């Protein structure tokens, strides 16, 4: 891992204002921020590891644990809420058997909720790996997930 992180740090200054930017880039590169990364950033910016830990756990964009292969984001904005998003969230939780913010045991899916995607005309919305699925229905959730799960898809075809 060290080469990529060194490259990121090299491109960023040593001022504290770079911290969030650095965290964004490390998160994008490794899908999480590891203890080693924290320690390396701490040396680079000359701020304590505890402070970096404080910042990264404050913001939703960063995670300490790696995310799953597919990121399932469900919009829980107000417009989606009044159009039934809570039931979609429940259904996703049930289908994936994980809570919001967690990753399935097989590391295939991470389920996340987002406050608003600003695509309110399509609500309720589920985004999988950046692709929008609008006007979701409870009964469509399992079929949508099947597409991303090789084993389930096989079963469904049978």
């Amino acid at each position, binding site marked *: 891992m060290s080469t990529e992180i060194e490259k990121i740090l090299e491109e960023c200054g040593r*001022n*504290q*204002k*770079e*911290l*969030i*930017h650095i*965290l*964004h880039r490390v998160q994008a590169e490794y899908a999480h921020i590891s203890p080693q990364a924290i320690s390396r950033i701490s040396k680079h910016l000359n701020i304590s590891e505890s402070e970096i830990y*404080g*910042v990264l756990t*404050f*913001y*939703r*964009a*960063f995670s300490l644990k790696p995310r799953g292969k597919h990121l399932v984001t469900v919009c*829980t*904005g*107000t*417009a989606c*809420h*009044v*159009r*039934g998003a809570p*039931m979609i969230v*429940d*259904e996703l939780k*049930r289908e994936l058997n994980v809570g919001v913010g967690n990753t399935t045991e097989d590391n295939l899916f991470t389920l996340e909720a*987002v*406050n*608003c*995607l*600003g*695509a*309110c*005309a*399509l*609500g309720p*919305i589920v985004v999988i790996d950046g692709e*929008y699925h*609008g006007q979701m*229905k*409870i*009964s469509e959730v399992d079929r949508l997930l099947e597409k991303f799960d090789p084993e389930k898809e096989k079963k469904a075809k049978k």
Partner: protein
Amino acid sequence: MKKGLTLEKFEEARAEILRDREIQKTGITICLGTGCHAYKCLEVSQAFKDETERQNLLDVVEVRTTGCHGFCERGPIVVIQPKGIFYQRVQPNDVKEIISKTIKNNEIVDRLLYVDPKTEEKIVYEKEVPFYKKQERIIFGNNGFLDPTDIIDYIALGGYEALSKVLFEMTAEEVISEVKESGLRGRGGAGFITGSKWEICRDVSSDTKYIICNADEGDPGAYMDRSLLEGNPHSVIEGMIIGAYAIGALDGYIYVRKEYPLAVKNVMIALDQARKLGLLGESILGSEFHFDIHVVQGAGAFVSGEETSLMASIEGRRAFPRQRPPFPAQKGLWGKPTNINNVETWANIPYIIKNGAEWYSSIGTRKSKGTKIFSLVGKINNTGLVEVPMGITLREIIYDIGGGIKNNKKYKAVQTGGPSGGCIPAEMLDLPIDFETLTKAGSIMGSGGMIVMDEDTCMVDVARYFLDFTQDESCGKCVPCRMGNLQMVEILTRITEGKGEEGDIERLEDLAKTVKEGSLCGLGQTAPNPVLTSIRYFRDEYEAHIKRKSCPALVCKNLIAYYIEPEKCVGCLLCLKNCPSEAISGERKEVHVIEQDLCIKCGACFDVCPPKVLAVSKLTGKKKEKILKRRK
């Protein structure tokens, strides 16, 4: 150092651009806003590009991808210019027909036209679509004409004219007094007079000053700032340069939410292009004025939209708000005087300078001038962004522009101002909207989200939703917000679960007062608004939940039961097959029955029961008890 264009050279360049544009080409403009993106407009625009090339039409036709047109409900949207022929829900396989009929033969493709649901009339031109008719699109209007990634488009439409006027014809004081006289008030929520805010910051003496554009549009259901940044970033940048000149700032920051990647991308491109032309950086347009703008990406914390938190976040720290005074104008970013305005406020500035304070103040009401962009979402027919003059009534927005409530349901309330705002009931539909009237109604203007709710929306559930949101987003620094909101969520959750007690409403009101008065920043001070307004206007719903254990809107899971009406059920097995908990029993062509003890109330049966049958219903309160008892 390489310098950009001087004013003279810039004006020459503009004249040349305008000459080029005189050769009228037919323009095919395709909306590329986030809403249309989700409808896969990229495939449509690619199809247009391929087809025009294939048919050798490149000399007479220009395919242009633009920012958000606002009418997200009907995406992907294609407008044929200069006539303004409006096609909606366009798919890649419609492209050939549009080219062969409309572009080559001036014929209209009937099936792609918008149909007015009221008159059932087909409408050809964009400006005649009822959604656009009552709008006054000053700030938002150019979105549909320009490619946000091309500065030339913006310049051709008169862009950066206001900047050259300011730099070479006006003193900083004159700029401030013009903005003050226009009556422009901050569009971020609080509605402070923008010119006065600038003046305060200008009057503080300091070697360094900063300006910030707050693009951390966190209110769920509001997305006008994103659409502006995505669709017309130069208008925001131009506004900021003018503001920096007036205030005397050398550096500016745009703080954008991380959920808005396209906005970040387009702003970066725009800044780069502006720098190359000498509109940013050293000696702007050859003047003595230096200024540059940096982009900072947020990291997903709602509280960072609050100005002091936002500054902490730019500095690379946790987004904690702090006590004011000192106000940012005195001690802001890195302790230096700082002026913060939101995206829409900045975007207003070039228009005010170009057309004058008098023109601007002729729009709107006595105390609220100009236009406001609202995002009209929820249970409304025409979801989208609408720009209207201040003083328009809610009824006009919801029924004339918005086309009324979805599925002919009954209007219940509109929620304005996001988690800091409140609900406005049907009795107040004729309320003219401005900063004062909304505050008086218990809500706020806020950032301009308007979430329409119908009879199927439970107001207690909505209040719980908002409180749950603010409680989750509370940074935890001050006790009233951290603990008070949590207590309120607990009470509200209890009520929606049917465990409400006598006295809960009063407890909520009491807590709300404490949180409002005791919280450190705007987040906590306004968090109780959704609870207070829903109690004020919909007390009966709270009482139904508490006293009768019934949810009149049939939303709260613990208070409802799904039930198959035997006289309607045709025995099609659909609900049975879709039930995840195997709670439904029955045979083909026989009445199905839900075993209530097994039912997890996921709603799948309600969802799949065919529209012609509609045998699954939701029950609550006494009716629920009665029917379920009878079944046993």
